[in-house]
């Protein structure tokens, strides 16, 4: 197919509304009679609520209602849940404490909502919130992992003694221990994976409207998966029946995982809209985002690698403490377990792996999936260990990796994953060539002569995308299936609508999904429309996260498309009086192969709907649906190399070069893929150099605004040099793998490996701020 099909860098269809200011985000929506909510949030990390006095606030101008946590409990609104059950090594289930949407008795992190004011205007709600008097009794707080697991530490939830939620293991402990006993060399490293805030530029927002006669709710919300929101809100939270709740996620200004979860504010807005009998809108401000959006990462890890005398890896042993915050968020338990430890084999042939993960409660914001979700943490552990091993064994880091690369596929790792395909040599070679790896020693010497410290860092990542199949994830504790659905509607005039359960919040689905149709039918993408993000329009879907939209979502569309094509061919054959097997589709026409007989798509579509002359027994219409459940994860992989220069006088690190060579399988739209990689790299580099959540000893969030939490800005980042190597994914008919998280997974280790190489000190924690680097240099 021509210029708009698969593989073409088509300019995005959705861009016009964004660049002209005509996007429609939740906060842009106004409903008749709409009121505004402002939450009253705990200033304490851990406290008992003695009393809440709302009487003065109720008298304030414009106030429609003041609602408290006790009222939401009295109305039997359900507690928030974690939807992935993890079993500890002793066979017991995870120890989940109750998380009410607003705290009735106890608060467990700064920012937890205790009450909400509903008023005519946002400012009136804010003003009245000042008049609500909450009387707290402060309790001792544990703001980090070490404090939470210390003997005698304050206990957060009675269900979780010692603040431990689960103690989970994977792999063969005995065999791994034996590998270490017989190892020629052992390398060990203590690693902190710093806590991050996703910080989508659009703050979370929700508008709820209750229609009393219909007993029907509508929720406009900043969600990556509106159908899952509807399912969870109805099945577990007792807010509305599923068929009486419409969830709409219109334009959403970035997610990065933080908008996968169901949050208290959405629940409260729905509940409150029924209580006050008016639509209720809540738009978070940036500090609320810092205080309440699920944070990411936050691991403490001890990692060890065993190698034989030929520098082949024989074993990997990892013990990780994961901070899940004050409550268990929707998918939190899966992140440091099945999304993390199952990727600890990296790109390497490691015969024995054993990992133990202990998840703990602390008095901090709940932690859940953030771009990469578990995979960045795993990749960082493996790639920092590889670098450390190379330095300890005094061998070239790239050569050590090559010696241990998996080269035979499929490859079964000792930690569940069966890698289907890859060519790790190809991507590392491409990256080494792009950065002129061979010429680095000369560049380092030259920099050294100029008084600069120059370092190079390699990072070879692998990730697992398109979490699946449903049967497998179900057996591992997942509470949902991870398929995707789609419907392809060919209208009577030949235009096409694609209804998809995937949600686009920056990924460009409105263009790439149309490119598939252009490829198959040979019609321009302007003739195709994507419908998504509305539970009243699309029957069901699992949403967008984990780089699943192409591998799972687009494949579902393809499956529906194949059914449409089969029916359309039958109609065309009937109309053209030809055999169905002789019909070929080209440039929007159904042709009889080897003849000049053809029928344009609109004529076939019209025939399907007029139904005047269809094959005997054929049902009218031309629309088909499909649910697609993949048979395996997909495994994107790549190699990143970063060259940095460090100023010993200031500790400031600057990029000399950053190259990325990724294997994402088939690229639908290379321009969009590269954009996804750029964004991921920025987040990975942000984690390495700039970003990090700081709580003080009392559990106050010190980094609660863009003035305190360093977001990467244009001047902090280099221009990236990207390239692609390709092995086609055998697990789906499109051969696609997924690209959204790659940059965030692979970049951090490349940066830290480069800086530690430059300064000759392997001990450096993220974010590697100039202050930390200076101290690492000067001791």
């Amino acid at each position, binding site marked *: 197919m021509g210029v708009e099909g698969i593989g073409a860098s088509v300019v995005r269809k959705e861009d016009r509304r964004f660049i002209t200011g005509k996007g429609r985000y939740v*906060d842009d929506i106004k409903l008749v009679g709409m009121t505004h909510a402002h939450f009253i949030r705990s200033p304490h990390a851990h406290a008992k609520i003695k009393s809440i006095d709302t009487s003065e606030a109720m008298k304030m101008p414009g106030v429609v209602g003041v609602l408290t946590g006790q009222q939401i409990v009295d109305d039997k609104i359900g507690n928030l849940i974690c939807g992935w059950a993890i079993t500890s090594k002793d066979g017991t289930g995870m120890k989940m404490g109750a998380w009410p949407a607003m705290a009735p008795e106890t608060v467990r992190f700064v920012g937890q909502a205790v009450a909400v004011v509903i008023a005519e205007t946002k400012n009136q709600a804010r003003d009245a919130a000042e008049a609500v008097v909450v009387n707290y009794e402060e309790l001792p707080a544990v703001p980090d992992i070490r404090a939470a697991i210390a003997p005698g530490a304050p206990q957060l939830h009675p269900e979780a003694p010692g603040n431990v939620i689960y103690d989970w293991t994977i792999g063969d402990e005995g065999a791994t221990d034996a590998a270490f006993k017989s190892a020629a060399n052992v390398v060990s490293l203590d690693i902190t994976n710093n806590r991050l805030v996703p910080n989508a530029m659009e703050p979370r927002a929700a508008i709820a409207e209750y229609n009393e006669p219909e007993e029907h709710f509508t929720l406009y919300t900043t969600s990556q998966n509106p159908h899952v929101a509807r399912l969870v809100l109805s099945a577990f939270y007792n807010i509305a029946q599923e068929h009486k709740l419409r969830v709409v996620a219109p334009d959403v200004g970035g997610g990065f995982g933080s908008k996968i979860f169901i949050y208290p504010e959405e629940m409260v807005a729905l509940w409150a809209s029924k209580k006050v009998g008016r639509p209720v809108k809540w738009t978070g401000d940036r500090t609320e985002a810092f205080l309440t959006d699920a944070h990411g990462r936050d691991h403490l890890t001890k990692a060890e690698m065993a190698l034989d005398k030929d520098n082949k890896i024989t074993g990997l042993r990892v013990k990780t403490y994961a901070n899940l915050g004050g409550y268990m968020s929707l998918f939190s338990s899966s992140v440091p377990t099945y999304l993390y430890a199952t990727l600890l084999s990296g790109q390497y042939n490691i015969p024995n792996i054993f990992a133990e993960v202990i998840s703990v409660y602390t008095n901090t914001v709940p932690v859940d999936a953030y771009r990469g979700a578990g995979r960045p943490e795993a990749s960082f552990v493996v790639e920092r260990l590889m670098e450390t091993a190379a330095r300890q064994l005094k061998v070239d880091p790239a050569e050590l990796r090559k010696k241990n690369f998996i080269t035979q596929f499929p490859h079964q790792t000792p930690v569940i994953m069966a890698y289907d395909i890859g060519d790790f040599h190809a991507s590392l070679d491409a990256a080494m060539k792009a950065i002129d790896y061979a010429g680095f020693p000369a560049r380092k010497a030259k920099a050294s002569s100029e008084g600069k410290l120059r370092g190079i860092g390699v990072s070879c990542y692998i990730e697992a995308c398109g979490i699946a199949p449903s049967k497998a994830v179900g057996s591992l504790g997942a509470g949902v299936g991870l398929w995707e659905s789609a419907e392809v509607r060919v209208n009577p005039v030949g235009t096409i609508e694609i209804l998809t359960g995937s949600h686009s919040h920056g990924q460009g689905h409105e263009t790439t999904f149309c490119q598939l149709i252009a490829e198959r039918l040979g019609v321009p993408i302007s003739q195709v429309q994507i419908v998504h993000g509305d539970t009243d329009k699309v029957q069901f879907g699992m949403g967008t996260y984990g780089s699943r939209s192409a591998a799972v979502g687009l494949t579902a569309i393809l499956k529906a498309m194949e059914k449409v094509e089969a029916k359309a061919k039958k109609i065309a054959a009937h109309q053209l009086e030809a055999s169905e097997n002789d019909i070929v589709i080209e440039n929007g026409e159904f042709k009889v192969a080897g003849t000049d007989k053809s029928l344009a798509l609109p004529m076939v579509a019209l025939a399907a709907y007029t139904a005047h002359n269809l094959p005997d027994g054929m049902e009218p219409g031309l629309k088909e649906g499909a649910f697609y459940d993949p048979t395996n994860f997909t495994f994107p992989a790549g190699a990143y190399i970063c060259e940095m220069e460090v100023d010993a006088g200031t500790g400031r690190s600057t990029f000399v070069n950053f190259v990325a060579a990724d294997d994402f399988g088939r690229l639908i739209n290379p321009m969009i893929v590269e954009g996804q990689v750029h964004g991921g790299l920025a987040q990975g580099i942000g984690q390495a150099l700039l970003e990090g959540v700081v709580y003080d000893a009392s559990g106050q969030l010190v980094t609660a605004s863009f003035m305190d939490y360093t977001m990467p800005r244009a001047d902090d980042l280099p*221009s990236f040099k990207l390239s692609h190597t390709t092995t086609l994914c055998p697990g789906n008919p499109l051969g696609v793998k997924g690209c959204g998280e790659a940059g965030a997974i692979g970049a951090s280790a490349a940066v830290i490996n480069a800086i530690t190489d430059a300064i000759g000190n392997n001990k450096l924690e993220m974010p590697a701020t100039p202050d930390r680097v200076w101290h690492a240099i000067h001791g």
Partner: protein
Amino acid sequence: MSTVKLTVNGKAVSAEVEDRTLLVHLLRDHLNLTGTHVGCDTSQCGACVVHIDGRAVKSCTVLAGQAAGSNVTTIEGIAKGDELHPMQAAFRDNHGLQCGYCTPGMIMSAIDIVHRHSGGQLDEATVRHELEGNICRCTGYHNIVKAVLDAAGRMKVAQAAE
């Protein structure tokens, strides 16, 4: 409450607002110009950048009353009918946006950067430095920088033609 009169995108407008109302809220809530976005509380992110009398300003740091009598241009006011502003076209052509939320503020800042450097050649380092007041979480800035440099050329050509 006060009445604020100003010109927005070439049209004289008047709004009755609380004295504490910020320009961004006047634009969004009273004039329904929702292209200008709010991304932070601290004037760090730049999603709300508009032009006041031709200069890029964060509309969350300006009281509506302070803008009285001025000429305000928002993202909705820079295209000529169906014809995009060269900066808008360059953002689209270079894939300088993903979720689109920071984009209006980015474009308004970028136009101002190009105007202020209209005398000389704009380079990557300058664009990166001058974009420091705008945060994007999606694009890694790579394509935004490309778009601004591309637009600088297009704007020169457009100016020469006028």
